[in-house]
């Protein structure tokens, strides 16, 4: 095919976005909505995951030491623990510090501590942060085998909880995104099918005067792609605006989110490029494929 023909066909495709605006607008809306749904679900999931790994990183094992362990042994133990595979960080937590924190945490009970005096009844400890929360149990077992250890206290329930949240979030978001994806494919293919169906006679006529399938398809392909790209662009714009407004509104309740361990939402700027390219690319792909597949049936004359 010659360049001038290609130019003509591309031009026809772009023109027909406007000529068939009622139909292309229907496809446009459907693609737009699909992208928005899947996209906002993905942004939501990304925020949740960030929040979870935030909590995860704060999760720690407390290793209480026996009384009166010599200082050099303590620092050697610290080194030993640090060498373990799954350990991310080890911090020494002295008994004096522990007692201070303990006192502070007790409201309305000042009288109790008055009778104890200043000597800390609590043991020295290490606070250990693990890399992978799901391997915590075996890490605890490894630490327990060491000498001079009074007790290892792990937030086991909390670990289970977190693992539970993680898998639940993964499950829900995968299910929802997959469901939305399928639903979107169905409605997009229907919208493009309807759009092409409304022009089946045109397609037939072109075939009858000797046009090849590819010749008829290119304008449809271009039309679908342009429609999809426009939808992608619009979706990206809406997401940008909507997400920023949303985060802004949520940030007014920052104390609330802090209580849940969320310090900051993912700023749009950090995902902007991904969102724009992803939307426009997905839109173009969906529009083009949808339209081209829909033409197939009518080309068989």
């Amino acid at each position, binding site marked *: *095919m010659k360049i001038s*023909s290609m130019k*003509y066909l591309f031009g026809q495709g772009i023109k027909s976005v406007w000529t068939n605006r009622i139909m292309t607008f229907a496809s446009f809306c459907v693609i737009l909505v699909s992208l928005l749904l899947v996209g906002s679900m993905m942004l939501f999931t990304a925020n949740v995951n960030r929040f979870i790994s935030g909590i995860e990183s704060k999760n720690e094992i407390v290793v209480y030491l026996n009384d009166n362990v010599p200082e050099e042994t303590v620092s050697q133990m610290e080194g030993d623990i640090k060498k373990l595979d799954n350990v991310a960080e080890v911090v020494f937590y002295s008994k004096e510090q522990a007692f201070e924190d303990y006192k502070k945490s007790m409201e309305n009970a000042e009288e109790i501590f008055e009778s104890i005096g200043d000597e800390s009844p609590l043991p020295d400890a290490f606070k250990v942060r693990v890399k992978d929360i799901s391997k915590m149990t075996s890490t605890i077992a490894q630490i327990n085998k060491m000498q001079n250890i009074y007790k290892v206290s792990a937030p086991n329930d909390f670990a289970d909880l977190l693992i539970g949240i993680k898998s639940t979030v993964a499950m829900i978001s995968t299910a929802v995104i997959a469901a939305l994806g399928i639903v979107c494919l169905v409605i997009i293919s229907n919208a493009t099918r309807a759009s092409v169906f409304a022009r089946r006679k045109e397609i037939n*006529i*072109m*075939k*009858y*005067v*000797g046009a*090849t399938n590819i010749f008829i398809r290119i304008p449809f392909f271009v039309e679908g792609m342009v429609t999809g790209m426009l939808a992608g662009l619009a979706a990206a714009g809406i997401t940008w605006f909507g997400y920023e407004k949303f985060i802004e509104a949520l940030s007014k309740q920052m104390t609330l989110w802090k209580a849940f361990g969320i310090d900051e939402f993912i700023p749009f700027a950090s995902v902007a490029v991904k969102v724009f390219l992803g939307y426009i690319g997905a839109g173009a792909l969906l529009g083009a494929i949808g339209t081209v597949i829909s033409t197939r049936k009518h080309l068989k004359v």
Partner: protein
Amino acid sequence: MSVTYSNGVDALNNVSLKINDGEFAFIVGPSGAGKSTLIKLILKEVDVTSGEVIVNGFNLHKIKRGKVPKLRRTIGVVFQDFRLIPTMTVYENVAFVLRVIDAPKKYIRSRVPYVISLVGLKDKVKCYPSELSGGEQQRVALARALVNDPALIIADEPTGNIDPELSYQIVQLLKDINNCGTTVLMVTHAQELVEHFGGRTIVLNNGSIVFDKVLGGINED
């Protein structure tokens, strides 16, 4: 060859017909005789139920899907229901046939207006089909059939919506094209045209050929 439509109508019954290169033939016959079906057969719009069709060297029974456009490009057709593309102007409708065969831009720009002026529609070039009268649409369809100099021109009732005077001019145009070597097949109900121009005349009735002879016309030349 025979054609039976899916609802059981036998449109053509054991018809056997050979049109020679460069011939000019009229096909006449009552409504529903199978004339349009014969044309649809040649264009491979319908397939034969039994028998064989060979057009411009293509055996339509064996031709591959991908080759069908090549076949159709060698035939210019005026459809009974015109089949103009409603979203294209007169110019674009006619030019489309040339674009399909990758004709040079320059050629398109000179050829299309020439053919449109041949059928007398110079001032309707920019109109859409819905803005044309019946006869004007029919003439656009004729222009489209002529524009790429096909080896075979088939015209299904090309003067059905056109006044007698213009009809004579149009058949004369087809005759002239025929004289340059193009085969022309014309379906018509206008007896006076057949009588006037003469030539090979095939009468279809009820799916069969009942008459096939060369008649002498009151030919002007």
